[in-house]
C-alpha cells in the first residue's frame, strides 16, 4: 500500500492536458531567441571547415570594415576570461583529457570548431561579415572512426601521444558480485553455447526542435545568461568555476526550452564565447545557431563498437557475459563525455540472472564533433547489445526468443534482487509485463502468419522482435556518483511557497524542456496538499528563483525532483498543523488533515490550508515557538536508482525484393510503478519509441574520411515524421510494480521508449529474413543494407557520399567558405 492509494487520488492518475502546451505550441512564449534587450548585439561564429588543422593566421580586417560590425575576435584575442569547456566526469584517474578551449587560437580538432566570432548590430550583418573573416589553415591528417583511432597511427591530438583516452573496467569476480567470466567462457566453448558478436551503435544527432540559443546581459548586478539549456544550475556552476566570475554574480535562466534529448545537457563553447564577448563589450549579446551549425557542432550521441561474448549452457541458461566497448568521444571530452558509455556498464546484464559479467570500455578521441548524452545515454546501447544477442541465443538453442528470456530473467518473487553488476532492483514483474504485451500484440497469431509467409515464399516476409528491457534511471544517489568520480551529486531540491491569498508556488530544481513538469508537479501538489490543480504554479529554470537544483536528464525529474517536492509539501503540512492547532485551540494530536483542511476529530471545527497561509502572512496570531511562515523546502538525495521495465514487441514487414521495411505492429507494456498523468506518460513513450525506432531505421551521422559531416542537413540526416510511424499499442500491467524507493511509487519514463525500442525493431527485421541466412543488419537498417544482407550476406556496405544536394545552384557565388 502506498500513500497515494490511501487518499482520494483526485489528481494523480488523471489524464490532465498539459497546461504549458498552449504557449509552447503556438510559440508565443519566451524562447531564448525571442528575447531582445536594449542595445543588444548579435554574434556569428566562424567555424573551421577542416577536421584537423593548425591555424596559421586569422585576418579580420575586411570583416571589421563590414557595415555595423562592432568587433571581430579570434582565439588569440582572448585570455583566461574565456574560460574552458569542462569534462565533469573523468572516468579514470589516468584519463587522457585534451584541453578544450571554447575558441582555440592555434589548432582546430573537428570540422565546425569555432575560430572567430563577429559581433554586429544585427544578426544579418554579423553573418555577412563572418564570411569575410579570412582564416588560413595548415591542414593536418585527421583521424575519423573508432577503428582508425585505436590504431594510433594518426592522432587526434598529437601532444597526447595516443587516441586512447581511458579504459574503464568492471569485473564481477573482482567486485565480488559474481564469478569469473573467463571461466564461464571456457566451459561454454567446450560444453555449451558461445556467441560472439560485434554490434555497431551508429553516431546520432539529438536534433532537438529549438536550435541552441544564448543571450548574455552583463549590465545588471548579476551577469545574466539565458540559454536554451537543460542544465541552468550546472551551467552556472561551470561558468563560475572556469571564468573567474563569482557564482553570486551569475544568474542563469533556462526560459522555455524546445527539447533537448540530452543534446542540451552540455556547457558549450558558444555559451562561453557569448559570455566573454558580452563582458568584454559590456553590452548584451545574442547568439542563435543555424540548423546546419546545430547538426555539425552541437554534441552528437552514441557511436560505439560493441564486442560481445555470451556464454551459456546447452539449454540456453546464460553463464557469463563479457562486453568490450570502444566508444568515440569525438575531439574533446564533453561535460559527461566518457561517462555516457560507463552508465551502460550496469545494464548489459539487464533483467537477467547472469552468474558472471565483465565490462570494459575503451574511450577514444577522433577529429569529429564531440559526443555526449543522447536520450537513454549508455542504457540504449546496453539494452541493444543484450536484447540482440539474447535473440541469437534463442536461435542457437532453437526456442522462441521470449522463452530464452524467461529461462534467464529474475522472477517476480525474487525481488529485491542484487544483480551481477551490483545494483539492487527493488521491484519488477517481467512475467506480468510480458504476458500482457503478448496478449495485446496477438503474438501467436503473428507467429502463425510469419510461418505461413515463409512457407509460401512470400515476397514480403514478417518478423517479430522482442525487447524485454529494464534501465537504471532517476540519476542518482550522490554517493554512488562520487564513487564513480562524477563531478557533482544527484540530489534534487524543491520548495513550496504558500502565498497570502492561498495560492501555491512551487519551485523545483528540475528544468523542464518539454516534459510537462508544470502539469505533473501541479497534480502531485494538488493531491498531497489538497488544493485545486489550478492554484498551483510551478517555477523553475531561473537561478534567482530556483537557486538550487541539478536539472533534468536521466529520467530523474519525477523520481528525484518529485520526491523532493513531496518532502517539501509534507513539511508545509507539518508547519501548518502547528499553526492550525494554535488557531483552533486544539491539540495537534486531535487534528486530521484531509482535502486541504485540518479538522478537530469529533467536531465540525476546522481550518483550510489557504486560511492558514493567510494567517501566516498576516501574522497577527501564531504560536510563540514558530516563525510566521508555513513555507518549506527540501533536498532529496535518492537512496537507489530507479528501475522501470517493460516488454516491447514489434512486427516488421520486409520486402525481400527491395529491402524496404515497414512496421506492422508495435506493442509495449511498460511497468513504471505509479502513473501520475497517463497522457504525459503516453507522450513520453510515443516520443521515446519514435526516437529509438529512428535509430534502428533512419538516423545516422556520417563523416567522410576528411572529417566533413556528410549528413549535415535534414535532407541527409533522416528524421521521421508522423507519416512514417504507426499507431502504437501502449499498455501497462494491471498491477504495477510500485517503486519502493520513493513515496509516490513512481519510476522514470522519459527514456524508456528509446531504450527499449531499438533492439525490438532490429530483432524484428532480422527475424523476418533470418531464414534467408541473415543474422545481423547494421543500423540504421536502410533498405539497401537489408537488401544486401539478403542477397549477399553482407549488411555492411557503407556508402559515405552525401545524397544529392537538392538545393545546389550550379552557378554564382559558390565559394568554398560559403557553406560555413
Amino acid at each position, binding site marked *: 500500500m502506498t500513500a497515494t492509494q490511501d487518499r482520494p487520488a483526485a489528481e494523480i492518475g488523471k489524464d490532465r492536458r498539459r497546461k504549458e502546451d498552449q504557449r509552447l505550441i503556438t510559440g508565443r512564449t519566451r524562447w531564448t531567441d525571442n528575447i531582445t534587450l536594449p542595445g543588444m548585439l548579435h554574434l556569428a561564429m566562424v567555424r573551421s571547415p577542416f577536421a584537423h588543422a593548425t591555424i596559421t593566421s586569422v585576418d579580420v580586417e575586411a570583416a571589421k570594415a563590414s557595415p555595423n560590425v562592432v568587433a571581430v575576435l579570434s582565439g588569440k584575442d582572448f585570455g583566461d576570461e574565456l574560460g574552458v569547456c569542462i569534462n565533469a566526469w573523468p572516468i579514470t584517474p589516468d584519463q587522457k583529457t585534451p584541453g578544450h578551449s571554447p575558441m582555440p587560437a592555434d589548432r582546430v580538432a573537428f570540422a565546425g570548431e569555432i575560430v572567430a566570432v563577429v559581433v554586429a548590430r544585427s*544578426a544579418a550583418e554579423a553573418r555577412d561579415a563572418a564570411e569575410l573573416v579570412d582564416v588560413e589553415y595548415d591542414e593536418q591528417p585527421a583521424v575519423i572512426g573508432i577503428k582508425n583511432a585505436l590504431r594510433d597511427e594518426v592522432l587526434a591530438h598529437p601532444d597526447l601521444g595516443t587516441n586512447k583516452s581511458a579504459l574503464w573496467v568492471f569485473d564481477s569476480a573482482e567486485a565480488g558480485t559474481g564469478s569469473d567470466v573467463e571461466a564461464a567462457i571456457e566451459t561454454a566453448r567446450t560444453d555449451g553455447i558461445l556467441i560472439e558478436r560485434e554490434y555497431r551503435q551508429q553516431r546520432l544527432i539529438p536534433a532537438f526542435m529549438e536550435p541552441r540559443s544564448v543571450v548574455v546581459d552583463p549590465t545588471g548586478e548579476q551577469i545574466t545568461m539565458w540559454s536554451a539549456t537543460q542544465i541552468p544550475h550546472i551551467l552556472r556552476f561551470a561558468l563560475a568555476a572556469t571564468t573567474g566570475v563569482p557564482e553570486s554574480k551569475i544568474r542563469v535562466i533556462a526560459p522555455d526550452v524546445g527539447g533537448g534529448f540530452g543534446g542540451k545537457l552540455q556547457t558549450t563553447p558558444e555559451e562561453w564565447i557569448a559570455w566573454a564577448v558580452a563582458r568584454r563589450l559590456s553590452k548584451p549579446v545574442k547568439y542563435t545557431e543555424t540548423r546546419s551549425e546545430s547538426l555539425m557542432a552541437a554534441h552528437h550521441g552514441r557511436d560505439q563498437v560493441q564486442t560481445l561474448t555470451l556464454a551459456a549452457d546447452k539449454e540456453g541458461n546464460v553463464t557469463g557475459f563479457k562486453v568490450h566497448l570502444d566508444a568515440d568521444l569525438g575531439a574533446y571530452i564533453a561535460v559527461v563525455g566518457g561517462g555516457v558509455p560507463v552508465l551502460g556498464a550496469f545494464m548489459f546484464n539487464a533483467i537477467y540472472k547472469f552468474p558472471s559479467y565483465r565490462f570494459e570500455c575503451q574511450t577514444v578521441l577522433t577529429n569529429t564533433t564531440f559526443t555526449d548524452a543522447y536520450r537513454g545515454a549508455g542504457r540504449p546501447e546496453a539494452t541493444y547489445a543484450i536484447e540482440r544477442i539474447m535473440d541469437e541465443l534463442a536461435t542457437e538453442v532453437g526456442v522462441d526468443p521470449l522463452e530464452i528470456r524467461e529461462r534467464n530473467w529474475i522472477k517476480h518473487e525474487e525481488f529485491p534482487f542484487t544483480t551481477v553488476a551490483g545494483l539492487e532492483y527493488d521491484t519488477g514483474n517481467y512475467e506480468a509485463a510480458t504476458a500482457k504485451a503478448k496478449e495485446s500484440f496477438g503474438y501467436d497469431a503473428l507467429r502463425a502468419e510469419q510461418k505461413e509467409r515463409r512457407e509460401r515464399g512470400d515476397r514480403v516476409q514478417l518478423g517479430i522482435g522482442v525487447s524485454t528491457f529494464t534501465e537504471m534511471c532517476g540519476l542518482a544517489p550522490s554517493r554512488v556518483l562520487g564513487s564513480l568520480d562524477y563531478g557533482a551529486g544527484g540530489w534534487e531540491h524543491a520548495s513550496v511557497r504558500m502565498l497570502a491569498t492561498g495560492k501555491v508556488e512551487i519551485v523545483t530544481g528540475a528544468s523542464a524542456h518539454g516534459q510537462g513538469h508544470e502539469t505533473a508537479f501541479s497534480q502531485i501538489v494538488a493531491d498531497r496538499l489538497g488544493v485545486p490543480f489550478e492554484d498551483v504554479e510551478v517555477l523553475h529554470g531561473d537561478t534567482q528563483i530556483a537557486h538550487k537544483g541539478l536539472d533534468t536528464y536521466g529520467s530523474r525529474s519525477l523520481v528525484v525532483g518529485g520526491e523532493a517536492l513531496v518532502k517539501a509539501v509534507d513539511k508545509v503540512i507539518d508547519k501548518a498543523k502547528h499553526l492550525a492547532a494554535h488557531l483552533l485551540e486544539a491539540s495537534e494530536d486531535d487534528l486530521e488533515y484531509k482535502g486541504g483542511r485540518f479538522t478537530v476529530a469529533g467536531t465540525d471545527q476546522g481550518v483550510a490550508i489557504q486560511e492558514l497561509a493567510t494567517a501566516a502572512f498576516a501574522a497577527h496570531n501564531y504560536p510563540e515557538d514558530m516563525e510566521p511562515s508555513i513555507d518549506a523546502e527540501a533536498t532529496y538525495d535518492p537512496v537507489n536508482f530507479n528501475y522501470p521495465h517493460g516488454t516491447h514487441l514489434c512486427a516488421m514487414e520486409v520486402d525481400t525484393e527491395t529491402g524496404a521495411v515497414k512496421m506492422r505492429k508495435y506493442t509495449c507494456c511498460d511497468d513504471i510503478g505509479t502513473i501520475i498523468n497517463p497522457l504525459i506518460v503516453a507522450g513520453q513513450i510515443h516520443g521515446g519509441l519514435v526516437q529509438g525506432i529512428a535509430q534502428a531505421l533512419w538516423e545516422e551521422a556520417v563523416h567522410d574520411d576528411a572529417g566533413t559531416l556528410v549528413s549535415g542537413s535534414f535532407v541527409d540526416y533522416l528524421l521521421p515524421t508522423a507519416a512514417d510511424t504507426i499507431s502504437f499499442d501502449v499498455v501497462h500491467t494491471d498491477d504495477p510494480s510500485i517503486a519502493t524507493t520513493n513515496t509516490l511509487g513512481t519510476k522514470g519514463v522519459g527514456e524508456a521508449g528509446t531504450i527499449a525500442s531499438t533492439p525490438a525493431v532490429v530483432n524484428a527485421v532480422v527475424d523476418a529474413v533470418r531464414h534467408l541466412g541473415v543474422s545481423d543488419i547494421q543500423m540504421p537498417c536502410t533498405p539497401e543494407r537489408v537488401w*544486401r544482407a539478403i542477397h549477399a550476406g553482407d549488411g555492411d556496405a557503407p556508402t559515405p*557520399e552525401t545524397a*544529392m544536394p537538392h*538545393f545546389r545552384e550550379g552557378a*554564382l*557565388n559558390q565559394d568554398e567558405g560559403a557553406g560555413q
Partner: protein
Amino acid sequence: MIPVQFDYLAPTSVEEALSALGQHGDDAKILAGGQSLLPVLRMRLNAPEVVIDLGGIASLRGIRDDGDAIVIGAMTTHHDVRDHALVKEHALLLSKAAAEVADSQIRHRGTFGGALAHADPAGDLGAPALALGAQFVIAGAGGTRTVEASDFFVDLFETAIGEDEILTEVRVPKHTGWGAHYEKFVRVAHQWPIVAIAATVKGSIDEARVGLTNMGSTPLRATATEQALAGATATGDGVRAAAELAAEGTNPPSDLNGAADYRQHLARVLTGRAVLKAAGV
C-alpha cells in the same frame, strides 16, 4: 540562417519580368514558390542582388484545355496540378506524381514550373513530364520558343532555359484514358525519391511510357522497357521481363541512400510494379 541581402521585385506581367531580368542579368534570380530557391539563399549557396517574384503574374497560373494538349501555367502549384480535373483526365501521371512531392505545405507553395526549371534529377515532376512528351514554352526578350522535353533537361540543375528567359507554361499532349502510376521509393515520407518510376500505359498494353527519376543527371526514359512492352499483354511475368531492361543506359548516383548498383536494381523491380499498377493489373 539569413540570406545575403537582395532587392525584391514583383512584376505583374511576363514582359515586366523579362525586362527586369534583362536589366539585371546574372545578378537576378527568379522566385516561383521559393521551395528550392529560399533554402539555396538561406544556406548562402547563391547570393543574387535581385529576386524577381513571379507570384504576382496571374497569367502564369492555371490549367487550360488547348485541343490536343492541356497547358499548365508555370506558377501552378503542385497541389493544383494534383487535383485538377483536366490533369486527371488527360495526364493522370502528372497528378499522381504531384501527389508524391514532399508534403502538403510544400505542395501548396511549390510550383510546377519552378520544379521543372530547378531540374533536380531527384525531382518528382521531370520524369513524368518527359514520359508524357511535354513541351516547354519559354519566353525571352525576342519572343517565345517551344522546347521538347527531350531537349529541355540538359544536366544536373540545368535546363534549356537561358539566363534571361522565363518558363511560362508547359504543354502536355493529352493521354486521355491512359492508366498511370508513380512509384516513389523513399525511406521517410517527406524525402526526395531514392528512385522513382513514372509509368503510363494505353490499354493493356498498346503503348507504354516509362520515365525514371534520379537514375542519372537528368530525368530518363526507359526506352528498352517501353519497346518491350508495346503490344505485350500485361501479365506479371511479361511486364517483369520488360522491366529487367529498365536500368539500361542509366547512370545513377551513389550516396547515403544507396549505391548505383542498388538503384539500378530498384529501377528494375519498381518499373515492373509501376507498369502493372498503371495497367490496372
